[in-house]
């Protein structure tokens, strides 16, 4: 097959799949802005009423607060831990490093249900009650792999000559970290932090097992979905997708600006 024909075929698959991935969400989002009567949508009277309903829904607001808190705390925690491990493991090699990194990456490669189950049983056997703390812990374990990966790759890309040059120019170790290492890592931190917050915000399966009586936005949405169709679900979908979109576009912009050659 000729190059252009193959590309047309690839393009067709791409377009079809993209429509499959985007159109349902756009349709649902559309339903959030128009009144729905007996299954049919009235496009003549756009409304923000469903969003107003959400703003008055205490359980949704509580779930939103929990999700935000978990995203913030777990991304900060994994940033700190990932930095320490990236710095510690940078000069290491051999089976020690392999074993270490296998542990760091394990929660990302195991099915979430296994990770959630293990944490649930650990909290049961240690007597730590399930709640925001266990959610934060679960999310940190899961996001640590991603954050560690981004930061350790960036750290490995720091040319040793920059550190040597800094020392040669009379900087102390702390000054070198302050003026050379941290600026070099800055955009990696921003991207990794955004990505971690996003993964935490969206996490459902581990959360379902370790949340106990606490609820997060995905769990709330799941519970609402089980009850049945309602326009306020559509409004909540718009809110959730909006937050995910902002976080992921910001992460993508940070990463792509960084990888573009200067």
């Amino acid at each position, binding site marked *: 097959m000729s190059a252009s024909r*193959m590309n047309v075929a690839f393009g067709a698959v791409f377009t079809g799949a993209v429509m499959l991935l985007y159109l349902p*969400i756009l349709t649902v989002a559309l339903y959030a802005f128009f009144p729905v009567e007996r299954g049919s949508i009235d496009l003549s009277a756009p409304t923000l009423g469903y969003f107003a309903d959400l703003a008055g829904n205490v359980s949704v607001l509580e779930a939103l607060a929990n999700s935000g808190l978990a995203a913030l705390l777990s991304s900060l925690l994994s940033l700190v831990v990932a930095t320490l491990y990236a710095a510690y493991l940078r000069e290491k090699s051999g089976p020690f490093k392999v074993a270490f990194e296998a542990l760091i990456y394990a929660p990302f490669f195991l099915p979430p*249900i*296994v990770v959630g189950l293990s944490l649930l*049983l*650990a909290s049961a056997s240690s007597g730590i009650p399930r709640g925001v703390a266990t959610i934060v812990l679960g999310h940190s374990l899961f996001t640590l792999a991603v954050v560690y990966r981004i930061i350790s790759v960036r750290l490995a890309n720091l040319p040793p000559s920059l550190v040597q040059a800094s020392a040669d120019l009379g900087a102390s170790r702390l000054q070198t970290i302050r003026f050379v290492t941290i600026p070099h890592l800055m955009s990696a931190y921003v991207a990794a932090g955004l990505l971690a917050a996003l993964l935490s915000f969206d996490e459902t399966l581990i959360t379902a097992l370790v949340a106990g009586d606490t609820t997060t936005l995905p769990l709330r949405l799941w519970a609402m979905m089980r009850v049945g169709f309602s326009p306020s679900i559509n409004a909540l979908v718009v809110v959730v997708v909006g937050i995910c979109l902002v976080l992921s576009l910001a992460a993508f912009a940070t990463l792509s600006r960084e990888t573009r050659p200067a």
Partner: protein
Amino acid sequence: MSARHILTYLVAILPLGLFIGYPLGALLWSSVSTSNEGAVTYTLAFLAEALSSPAYLAVLGVTLVICIATAIISVAIALPMALFVWSRPARYQPIALLVLILPMFMSYIVKIYTMRSLLGLNGFFNQLLLTTGIVDKPTTLFLFNRGSILATFVVLYIPFAALPIYLSLERVPANFVLAGRDLGASYARALKDIVLPLASPGIVAAALFAFILALGDFVTPQMVGGPSGMTFGRIVWSQFGLAFNYSLGAALGIVLLVVTVAALAGSGLASRALTARMGR
């Protein structure tokens, strides 16, 4: 190794051991023990039940079939998508890549919800059939069966499959296709002989991601699978809900863990073998 090195190593690995090793240990421990009013007894009965009960094995079989199908279909769709993005001119590539992987982050639970609305009684497909007059009342053909689970898994996990494929394509030098064509290979032949073997680690990783993510998923089968869409993940989940049997749940979780580790090991071997063999 000096004593100081060993000490720092222990200090460094402690948090990981505590927060990853201990929970996995708890999983293992729970699967072989049961406590009754403080008295702990050790038993292999739960593991034996998880591994020998015909009901569980049947569901495991069905789950594996669905997950393998998910992996194959996701890769079959993600591969041409990734090739399309990869063959765009350099300045359009970032935006095409963004379009490709953005759905990955557009909320897992929302995607299940939208698939449910798409496939449901009032969903898009039923509306289509009703309008075209193929059926005169909504059909449940699309929802609450294994097919609907598979379809939802595929929609959920296509972006997860596409990303590793794209990343491995990105490492194939741009002029390899031209070099192959210069030597007389058609575009398709150059892709098959040169690009795909070099991208095969990414393709294997893509299949692995889709497989593992589908394997442990219990929300999707519950929401779109209905009563007939029982999967292994749902059985495990139910042990912590209605059935409230931690030990059996842990034992079933161990089965999932073993399948996962086997898939990871198998994919490592497959990736190496594929790259080597396809070069010939």
